[in-house]
């Protein structure tokens, strides 16, 4: 079965090709076909997983070469897939969540004029994402990496008639490409120093690398991760990406693509570990982003933007985990996040579907009565996100904080707790403003159809029960399964003063505290939150604009960049470079104009010229001898 791993990316790819080339005839069955193919892909993944579980933990890494791709001299980048626990966990997440979201989309996108196109892109995305996670060398990984970027662009800008959507798509592609390019250079550096781009050889050689080189490679790869996973300072595209259809936000901008950065760091952990500073950078970037994005999320009124900042924040958490060496935990949180965040997004989508696109929480309210399933789903997802005990988010987040604490990074731990507190506040706020209280505008929402509700329910179940798979950092199923690939989780012998249980209690208390505070402000009815908004207008705007990072880029990079380009084009190129050329031409014309005046038409002038020439010529000859 392992040999058939190529089917996993190939099936959705085939779907994409078919739907792109024959979108019109396939229009009626586009959604079904696309879902079916991703489902089939999921099934194949499961079968491969079963195969994998059937062999010993040490033999669970298999490379399946499909064909030679680029091969010149010593450089070889074959299309070769890697089946190992890490890639399978990722593949299952991608196909699993992907399948649910495909199904959800069938109804959600119903009636859209580019229905086939939508599923083609979605299928293409799944194929690219699977290529990314299954690749066995850096270049093929990069193929998937850019492929998902493309699909992200296509899907964000899916409703391209809207200027904002088109802009957002372009922005996403370009900002992530900045990181991607750094990553590409990292790949070059890896090839240049290790002589290969295959994982086994590159990571195998990591230990022998000079620490400076390892740091460079690690940080360059991490730059790619920062772009793709929307970490500071390349996070600016993700909030805008919410212009895309909501299922897309759920799949790409929450569950899968944005987690690719985390996957990359975990996959390449050998290199990060060979460097003294790289892991530290990862952890710090992660935690700073987590807090920053959490604060920004509080200031958002657009429900999807709340979730977007939340995603950024949670990805920060994952990097924190990776940065303190808890790779398996990072992946576990990744999977957990995929479930609950997808759930949250689908719920938000359901809201949008019901309100004809109104998503501003200040205009919503009281939706729970009209849409109980959606409200419940959102609540479950929110609680999981906040880290309420026994939901999946509790376990994963708790393990991350514990890992930070146990690694002796108390600062990270405390900041992580702050982030968790903030998380609880913003998600509670979002829930309360959307679903509780009185409706704040004239809307006639209705519950979503079954094809949308069922996937939400399934994800909800996952968010509730997922914890069973990885309840403990040392003994969780996921963590143990991943162990051979990412390093066995170390059993820290209580490095700090607090026991594991103690840490859990603290984390839970923080989460509950956050929820309580948010309830006090937004749900209890005792505080007039709208008055508060007006009172702290400046601070609120700063939060809602993400502390003006985007504006700063505009002022500091984009505007001067445009000016520089404009200068190059209209002054440098036309005046200086081209001007020099044309100047030479003009000089000759002018010279000719002057020269022709010497031709006076007078015989005596000509005779004079003749005489002077003759004299000069004879003199030159005679004098020289």
């Amino acid at each position, binding site marked *: 079965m392992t040999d058939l791993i190529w089917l996993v990316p190939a099936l959705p790819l085939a779907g994409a090709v078919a739907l792109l080339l024959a979108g019109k005839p396939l229009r009626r069955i586009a959604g079904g076909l696309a879902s079916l193919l991703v489902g089939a892909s999921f099934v194949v993944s499961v079968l491969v997983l079963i195969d994998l579980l059937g062999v010993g933990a040490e033999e669970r890494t298999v490379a399946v070469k499909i064909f030679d791709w680029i091969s010149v001299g010593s450089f070889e980048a074959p299309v070769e897939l890697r089946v190992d626990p890490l890639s399978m966990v990722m593949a299952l997440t991608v196909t699993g969540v992907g399948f649910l979201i495909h199904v959800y989309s069938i109804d959600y996108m119903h009636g859209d004029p580019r229905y086939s196109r939508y599923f083609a892109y979605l299928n293409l995305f799944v194929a690219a994402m699977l290529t990314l996670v299954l690749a066995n060398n850096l270049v093929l990984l990069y193929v998937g990496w850019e492929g998902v970027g493309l699909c992200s662009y296509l899907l964000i800008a899916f409703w391209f008639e809207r200027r904002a959507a088109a802009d957002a798509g372009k922005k996403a592609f370009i900002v992530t490409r900045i990181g991607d390019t750094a990553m590409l250079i990292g790949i070059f550096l890896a090839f240049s120093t290790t002589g290969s781009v295959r994982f086994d050889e590159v990571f195998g050689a990591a230990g022998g690398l000079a620490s400076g080189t390892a740091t460079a490679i690690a940080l360059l790869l991490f730059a790619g991760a920062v772009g793709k996973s929307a970490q500071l300072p390349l996070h600016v595209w993700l909030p805008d990406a919410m212009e895309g259809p909501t299922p897309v936000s759920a799949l790409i901008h929450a569950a899968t693509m944005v987690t690719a950065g985390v996957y990359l760091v975990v996959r390449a952990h050998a290199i990060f570990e060979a460097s003294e500073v790289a892991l530290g950078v990862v952890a710090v970037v992660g935690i700073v982003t987590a807090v920053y994005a959490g604060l920004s999320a509080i200031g958002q009124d657009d429900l999807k933007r709340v979730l977007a900042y939340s995603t950024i924040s949670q990805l920060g958490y994952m990097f924190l985990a990776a940065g303190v060496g808890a790779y398996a935990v990072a992946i576990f949180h990744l999977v957990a996040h995929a479930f609950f965040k997808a759930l949250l997004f689908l719920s938000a989508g359901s809201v949008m579907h019901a309100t004809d696109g109104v998503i501003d929480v200040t205009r919503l309210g009281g939706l729970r009565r009209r849409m109980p399933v959606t409200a419940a789903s959102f609540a479950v997802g929110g609680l999981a996100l906040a880290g309420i005990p026994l939901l999946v988010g509790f376990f994963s987040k708790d393990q991350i904080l514990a890992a930070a604490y146990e690694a002796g990074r108390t600062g990270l731990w405390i900041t992580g707790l702050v982030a968790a507190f903030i998380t609880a506040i913003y998600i509670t706020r979002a829930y309360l403003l959307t679903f509780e209280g009185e409706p704040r505008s004239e809307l006639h929402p209705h519950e979503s159809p079954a094809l949308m509700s069922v996937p939400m329910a399934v994800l909800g179940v996952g968010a509730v029960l997922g914890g069973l798979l990885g309840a403990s950092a040392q003994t969780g199923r996921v963590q143990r399964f991943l162990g051979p690939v990412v390093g066995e989780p170390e059993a820290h012998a209580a490095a700090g003063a607090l026991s594991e249980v103690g840490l859990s209690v603290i984390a839970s208390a923080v989460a509950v505290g956050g929820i309580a505070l948010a309830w006090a402000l937004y749900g209890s009815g005792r505080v007039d939150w709208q008055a508060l908004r007006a009172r702290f207008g400046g601070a609120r705007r700063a939060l809602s604009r993400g502390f003006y990072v985007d504006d700063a880029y505009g002022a500091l990079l984009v505007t001067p960049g445009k000016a520089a380009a404009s200068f190059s084009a209209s002054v440098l190129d036309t005046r200086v470079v081209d001007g020099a050329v044309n100047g030479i031409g003009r000089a000759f014309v002018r010279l000719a104009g002057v020269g022709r005046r010497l*031709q006076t038409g007078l015989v005596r002038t000509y005779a004079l010229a003749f005489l002077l020439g003759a004299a000069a010529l004879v003199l030159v000859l005679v004098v020289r001898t």
Partner: protein
Amino acid sequence: MRTPIAFFLVVSALLFTIGTVGVLVRRNALVIFMSIELQLNAVNLTLIAFSRQLGEVNGQVLAFFSMVVAAAEVVVGLAIIVAIFRRRVSANVDDINLLRW
């Protein structure tokens, strides 16, 4: 005692120069043409001087040819000048600058 050849050559060069200057400073086409004839004759003097010094006849032969040529040039030249004079009532070469630049 023969006159040194240098004397002839200098005189001839002077004549040639006078002719040249004449071409340059005079405006009447006829006078210019006469100056050219002067140049030719100056050269003839050189030729004959050399011929005499070398004791060789070719120079003199060439001098004869040059006279013939000069005569032919007179024929052609006068015809041209007269034709132009008829049309323009002027033999001033400075008036003849229809073709220029």
